[in-house]
């Protein structure tokens, strides 16, 4: 069965996107990319600290990956636009994850500012993937503003709580004619599978992999979970019933 996944006109080989933050040792990132099968990889942009030796994150990301810089650190649309333009100036493509956060406790995205930034950047030719709180009206406005996909959170960033926003994300999947990518909060492969089973187009995972005991193996586990969940969605899951229904014939033997 043909199940191509296309974003911004580009075919993406894996429905698992991974982030590169919080790894104890960045040198394992290429192995995690490989074990997870991920192609889309997120990174962030920061001021250089002249007083300390810093690594160039790009050197850990294999050539065939699609790099998706985020606008983390932006507190409003203007700052997100500024970061996005800087990121593109590095020459690593035109994908951008918009992340506008001014709430430091829960790191919840500001949908209003995110919509504004999406409109400006999509008009400038960016492939815009906005991180958002799952709200139907905001998602509709993001689509109108030119978003290439919509990325609702499953739970607050880095919490590993799972798909707490399930009902709201489901509504986006049903109503928004764009890829819906669950971003943030997924803590276990089963939760990634859950998102995929209900029809999410992809998931973005960082903390759950980066802080696992064995990130390389956990990346692989998430890769399998995303594949399994996607296949289940495409297959159409069976009906849920209140009472038992025997799977084996109950007559014609002994009785």
């Amino acid at each position, binding site marked *: 069965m043909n199940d191509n996944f296309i974003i911004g006109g580009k075919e993406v080989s894996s429905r698992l996107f991974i*982030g590169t933050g919080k790894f104890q040792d960045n040198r394992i990132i290429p192995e995690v990319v490989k074990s997870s099968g991920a192609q889309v990889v*997120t990174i*962030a942009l920061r001021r*250089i600290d002249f007083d300390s030796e810093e690594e160039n994150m790009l050197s850990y990301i294999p050539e065939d990956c699609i790099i998706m810089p985020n606008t983390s650190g932006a507190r409003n649309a203007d700052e997100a636009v500024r970061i996005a333009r800087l990121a593109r100036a590095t*020459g690593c493509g035109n994908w951008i994850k918009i992340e506008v956060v001014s709430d430091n406790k829960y790191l919840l995205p500001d949908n209003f500012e995110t919509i504004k930034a999406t409109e400006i950047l999509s008009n400038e030719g960016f492939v815009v993937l906005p991180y958002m709180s799952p709200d139907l009206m905001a998602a509709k406005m993001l689509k109108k503003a030119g978003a290439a996909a919509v990325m609702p959170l499953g739970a607050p960033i880095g919490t590993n709580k799972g798909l707490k926003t399930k009902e709201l994300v489901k509504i986006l999947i049903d109503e928004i004619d764009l890829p819906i990518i669950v971003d943030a909060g997924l803590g276990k492969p089963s939760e990634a599978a859950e998102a995929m089973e209900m029809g999410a187009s992809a998931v973005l995972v960082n*903390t759950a992999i980066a802080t696992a005991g064995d990130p390389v193996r956990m990346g692989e586990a998430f890769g399998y979970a995303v594949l399994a969940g996607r296949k289940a969605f495409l297959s159409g899951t069976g009906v849920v019933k209140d009472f038992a229904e025997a799977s084996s014939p109950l007559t014609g033997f002994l009785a």
Partner: protein
Amino acid sequence: MNITLNGKSTELEEAMTVAELLELKRIELDRVIVEYNYDILVKDDWKTTLLNEGDNIEVLRFVGGG
């Protein structure tokens, strides 16, 4: 001469270009991004852009992020 470099007031003893400033700070020039007075400064212009009193320079690079 005083400039603002990555948000910090920085004293430069002599006139220099952006490229010379990066060299002085021992920055690997590969894949860093320079913002000069709030506009992106493309790499081709680093060698020809002479710093002036009060300039604001941001030097950025990619780090891990989700």
